[in-house]
């Protein structure tokens, strides 16, 4: 590992970045490092971790708002929220286990810096939708803030949200302020078995059109479903299509009936109760159905109804197993390891059916040689480089992590 620095205060971080600016030293930016094996490898002389910037600086349960230092572990945030009956609505996924990193180590800063959202995104929005404000240090060693702590804020440009998903290439976040929501009283899951992809997506579309607030809609192809921990679902040898309902108990019961009635043409539905639901969706949050092994993992975002066609198009060229989240709009796709990661085929399929693809798991040498993130069209690339220059003119923050020279 390169020279590791652990600033304990904003001014200290600012001082370190200033030193690197002066010496033109590239910096690898990490929180707990659980996503280090994702993205293009960064060659940097210096690593700065936000891990020592920790602690919850503000929590107002009646205002549904929390501020935390960027290095605060997500687990600590969620424990504090749970103690007051609240949670992060966007259910951030943990990519650690699927990519050979540690489990449950990620920091809250990194969750927003990578805009990681889980199944509940379809109902409640993504990580970026819950971000209200940030503090950070850019590549000019300027300490700045954006947004604030109130729910509605259009004062100036939305810089906080603009930094979500920038993977530490524009600024090192030191504090994030975000919206939280109450835990629902109960959860239940309605499960259909053995549906082909096309029908499953059709079912999920029909479910999402019902006024029952489906807060999770996933489809696991049979080989993927076999990796579930739930003994009943695992042993069926069938694809699993699952819909989650969350609310107070009587509402969940009524909505479950309504949903089953609306979807009865798709066959008999099974049900997971509250406890089983927590386990099932918890597994998906850890992406444990896509365990770390010598295969490649792609993340594809597309129009839900095109998702089965997109997967079928890729399957014409290579074996592929899919886990569809977001009612089909997000595909986790496992394919055999190859030197070029099947990049040409995956990108061709996304070009035809719409959307974009990111290579999440691959050997370092592969990630160094292929385009890990979706290539940008020339105009968007020009704006992207412009933003990089605006925030980090010397190109010292996580250089090349997303795109070469960005």
């Amino acid at each position, binding site marked *: 590992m390169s020279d590791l620095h652990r600033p304990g205060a904003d001014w200290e971080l600012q001082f370190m970045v200033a030193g690197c600016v002066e010496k033109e030293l590239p910096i690898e930016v990490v929180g707990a490092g659980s996503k280090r094996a994702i993205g293009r490898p960064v060659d940097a002389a210096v690593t700065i971790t936000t891990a020592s910037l920790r602690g919850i600086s503000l929590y107002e349960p009646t205002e549904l708002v929390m501020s935390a230092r960027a290095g605060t572990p997500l687990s600590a945030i969620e424990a504090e929220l749970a103690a007051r009956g609240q949670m992060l609505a966007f259910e951030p996924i943990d990519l650690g286990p699927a990519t050979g990193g540690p489990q449950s180590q990620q920091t809250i800063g990194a969750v927003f810096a990578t805009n990681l959202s889980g199944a509940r995104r379809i109902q409640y929005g993504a990580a970026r939708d819950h971000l209200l404000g940030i503090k950070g240090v850019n590549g000019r060693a300027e300490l700045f803030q954006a947004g604030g*702590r*109130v729910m509605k804020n259009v004062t100036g440009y939305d810089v906080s949200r603009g930094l979500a998903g920038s993977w530490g290439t524009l600024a090192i976040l030191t504090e994030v302020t975000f919206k939280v929501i109450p835990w629902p009283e109960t959860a239940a899951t309605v499960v259909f078995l053995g549906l082909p992809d096309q029908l499953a997506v059709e079912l999920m*579309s029909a479910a999402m059109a019902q006024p029952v607030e489906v807060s999770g809609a996933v489809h696991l192809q049979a080989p993927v479903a076999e990796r579930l921990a739930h003994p009943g679902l695992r042993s069926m040898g069938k694809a699993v299509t699952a819909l989650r309902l969350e609310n107070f108990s009587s509402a969940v019961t009524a909505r479950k009936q309504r949903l089953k009635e609306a979807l009865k043409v798709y066959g008999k539905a099974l049900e997971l109760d509250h406890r089983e639901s927590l386990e099932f969706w918890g597994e998906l949050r850890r992406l444990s159905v896509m365990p770390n092994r010598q295969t490649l993992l792609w993340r594809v975002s597309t129009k839900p109804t095109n998702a089965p066609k997109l997967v079928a198009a890729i399957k014409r060229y290579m074996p592929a197993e899919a886990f569809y989240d977001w009612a089909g709009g997000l595909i986790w796709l496992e394919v055999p390891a190859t030197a070029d990661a099947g990049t040409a085929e995956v990108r061709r399929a996304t070009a035809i059916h719409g959307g974009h693809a990111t290579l999440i798991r691959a050997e370092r040498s592969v990630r160094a040689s292929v385009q890990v993130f979706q290539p940008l069209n020339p105009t968007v690339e020009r704006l992207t480089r412009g933003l990089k220059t605006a925030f980090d003119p010397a190109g010292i923050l996580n250089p090349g992590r997303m795109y070469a020279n960005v």
Partner: protein
Amino acid sequence: MSLSRLPDPDRGVLARSQTIINDLEQLIGAEAVISDEEGRRAFEADALTAYRRVPLAVVLPSSTEEVAKVLKYCHQNRIKVVPRGAGTSLCGGALPAEDAVVIGISRMNRVLEVDTANRTIAVETGITNLAITAAVEPDGFFYAPDPSSQLACTLGGNLAMNSGGAHCLKYGVTTNNVLGVRMVLVDGEIIEIGGPFLDAEGYDLLALIVGSEGQFGIITEATLRILPKAEGSRPILLGFASSEAAGQCVAAIIGSGIIPVAIEFMDKPAIAVAEAYAKAGYPLDVEALLIVEVEGSKEEMDRLASDIIEIAYTCQPTIVEPSTSDEHTERIWRGRKAAFGAMGRISDYYCMDGVIPLSRLPQVLTQIGQICARHQLRVANVFHAGDGNLHPLILYNANDADEAMRAEIAGAEILKLCVAVGGCLTGEHGVGIEKRDLMNEQFSPTDLTVQMRIKSVFDPNWLLNPGKVFPLEASPATSASEEAAA
């Protein structure tokens, strides 16, 4: 009034007016260019009528390609451009300049595609906010952001200002409901960002573009998220003997784990005016009213309403009136919806848009009263309580220059107060010309520089919607220095 200084027009551009108009007519046809004095005067202001400037010309393109032609021409000739939707901005966001060409998008108002299977709608941005919901309502869907001006305001303006509305407590504001845009950059280049999927690749350009107040480009088409409409909705009217008790009730409801679709607040002066006009049956002997709306099936609404009423009883309400019928629902909302219009009938008013942390509500309401009293002005409060977005209406007589000036000064003091208690200058109206010079209250010079550098990425010569958002003395300097550095 007019406290904010407007930039001096570029005399060189003014001298070329006729040439510019001729060129624009050549580009997109004379029928799409308004150049006569009277026609241009119709565009001299938006809903912040204290500021007026007659633009050099107004163009009303019918396609993205025409917008691109005009922008390319203006860019090549260094002519400023002011984008305009329906002109309902309350902060002067669509205020023209004498040396600027106004590009109005109102003719581009088509629905391009309704896709209920993927829960999206693609539209041109000149469409009104309400027309979007109208297009998907037959299929049981709606478009969530619902600014008060939704009958008139365009999606283009909503995107520029990141508009909210009464129901964003549950469903989020514009930025949370936009999936993709087709936009013309200042140099006339057309780009597409995002699409009918839930995230876009690369940096979150959509996040930066939405809410950029027309300073990054002109969005001509957008793909939006639509949601299935709830089975029903029902308001509960709650009256309190003090604003403090009403504020406590809001906090107690949210703290209990219930997020209603909307929580609206009105104080005594607002109630009196609304009731006189709308005959909604509001009690006149309360200091504050809340309208708390729940939605869902009948059983769900029964349960939520009874929970909310139980919580409300811990805050000593003087009135508890759940809606019992559709007619009753209409009546409860009638007063609230008519409040701004009713106020306009009795007086000119200046509508503020600050946001505060909810816990500071009683203190801030008291101080707002004190500020207005000090300036010998009356104030009424009507606002979205659930998210702390205040709308104090400062009443004044526009024909009395001194009173108008005092109203603007009082407004600035109220906004400074919002920032001081941890809030912000504007929750849904935008900065525009109105709050431009208060930006230093909320942001450090570095914070503002960070924002202005982003502006320079999209619009290096600062031609788009000039003289807004940033304090005047700050912006051109930064632009020039960035150019020099590039």
